[in-house]
């Protein structure tokens, strides 16, 4: 079961988003909103998995700057199909996080 244990012992968090304009913008936004963190982007054609360790923040103002238009954070809900970690959903930002580090 070494293989499965490798999957279990992770601290990955982040959104799983239907591919498209918003997904592309989020990929850009997370790099800006989470300075110094390394992201792994896995494109599965129907969805993109965006992951980093511990905490991942997406801010409304960053999304607006990238998209060049007003952005309500709930618009993320149109394409947010799943996510790793726990979620905090505010009008100003979405945050994915874990409370314990393995």
């Amino acid at each position: 079961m070494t293989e499965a244990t490798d999957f279990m012992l992770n601290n990955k968090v982040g959104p799983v988003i239907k591919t498209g304009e918003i997904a592309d913008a989020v990929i850009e936004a997370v790099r800006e909103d989470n300075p110094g963190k390394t992201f792994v982007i896995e494109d599965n054609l129907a969805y993109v998995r965006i992951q980093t360790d511990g905490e991942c923040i997406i801010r409304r103002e960053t999304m607006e700057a990238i998209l060049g238009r007003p952005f309500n954070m709930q618009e993320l809900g149109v394409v947010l199909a799943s996510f790793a970690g726990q979620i905090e959903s505010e009008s100003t930002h979405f945050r994915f996080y874990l409370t314990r580090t393995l």
Partner: protein
Amino acid sequence: MAFLNRADWYDLARATNWSPRYVSEDQLFPPEMSDRFGLSLEQWEAYDEPFKISYREYVDVQSRKDADAYSVRAALARSNFYDNADAGWQSILKLHFGALCLTEYSAVPGESKMARFGKAPGMRNMATFGALDEMRHTQIQLYFAHEFVSKSRQFDLAQKLLSTNSWAAIATRSAMDDTILGRDAATLSIMLTFALEQGFTNLQFLGLAADAARAGDFSFSNLISSVQTDEARHSQIGGATLKVLIANGKKEEAQRAVDISFWRQWRLFFTLTGPAIDYLTPLAHRDKSFKEFIQEFIVAQFERALVDLGLERPWYWDFFLKSIEFYHHSGHLEIWFVRQTVWWNPAAGVSAAERAWLEAKYPGWNAKWGRLWDVIADNVRHGRTDKLYPKTLPMLCNICGLSVGSIPHEGHSNRGYWTEFGMRRYYFCSEPCQWIFNLEPLRYQDHKSVIDRLLCGDIQPPDIEGTLRYFDLMPGERGEDAHDYAWAWPELALDPAAERPSQEAA
């Protein structure tokens, strides 16, 4: 018009608990409907739903989702994708819509129960949206399925299946009733939204969406991933329940609810999604195996969230990890063999190239299941049609209603689990199913498996035709081999349409 930020008014607006004066708290929220854990309204005040949304936002977001799904479908309606799709893919559509359209509808009373009887205002609020979500899933998937009714009568099962006595319908109803109708709002928030929707629905609605996109079925891919965006929100109802329960010393009870539901849903989902991803999806469009999707969504993601919320892995976790390697391979072979009893045409999915893929993804596949398919292929080539169908029904579990499967070849590791209770003996597929029964035998004692119904004389005549009629599966609906056995001739594997050699005499 300027709006306040939701965070500035949301907590106040959804603070809808009050102190009842004309009835007691238990009359307003009967424990059997609201909360078997026995927490007070005050204790539930700590409930904080993490994925918040207002009604205005909900309507806006949902209308965008529908506009997106329906417009993609409209744009692709004339592409004739279905007519040109591989028979295996056509079967995935039949399987999906039959198994899920009305199962989604069975979740509406669950969300509604939480919306009325949940003791936490936040739960009631989110579950109101959850009930609307599940109605949307029912309606939109029935609408998409209806497009294909003129193509095959098997699509009728999208409307029909759940009200039949098919083995699949009995298994599904039993699991959903145990999760929803037979539970209080607090327990069902864990069993339905956390254990099912935060976990296994990802396999069918995202894993399969990835395969659908590769297969070029963008309409279906877009539809099911759109459904999962609703699940991503309302599945958060249960996590918030877990936090309240753990904070109030109910960790053990909460853990039990997770362990029961996770296992029941796993039994359903390996049967539904496993064969679809590893056998029915045309090889050229496959990327990840079913096992890899489980590792992604269940092991790395769901299990991690479970631990982060303060719970433990289910007690049978090691066996669960082992079962990922074999349950759906044995299940697929079984379903193919009893294909008359299902409403899609199972693709064997064992041509030479497909076997190589299976062996690479599941080392040892050939030595276990490949050997059995060799015998079936040999029977096909020699025209021994009587050996291509079962003479009897498989042994079914008294909890999950599914076949008692195991790993073939390895000394045939199958073993029985049973419990004597009341006047009879109950049989189970596995230790977890037996554990579920033993926890509350009174809850399950009257449920009859298909085998029980056969032995009790409910199914008449007690033969295959009588059973198929009992399942309400009529000629034209019953499954056949998707590729008319072309896979049994290895030299034809790459071109199923080519003329095959005449069958050798048996």
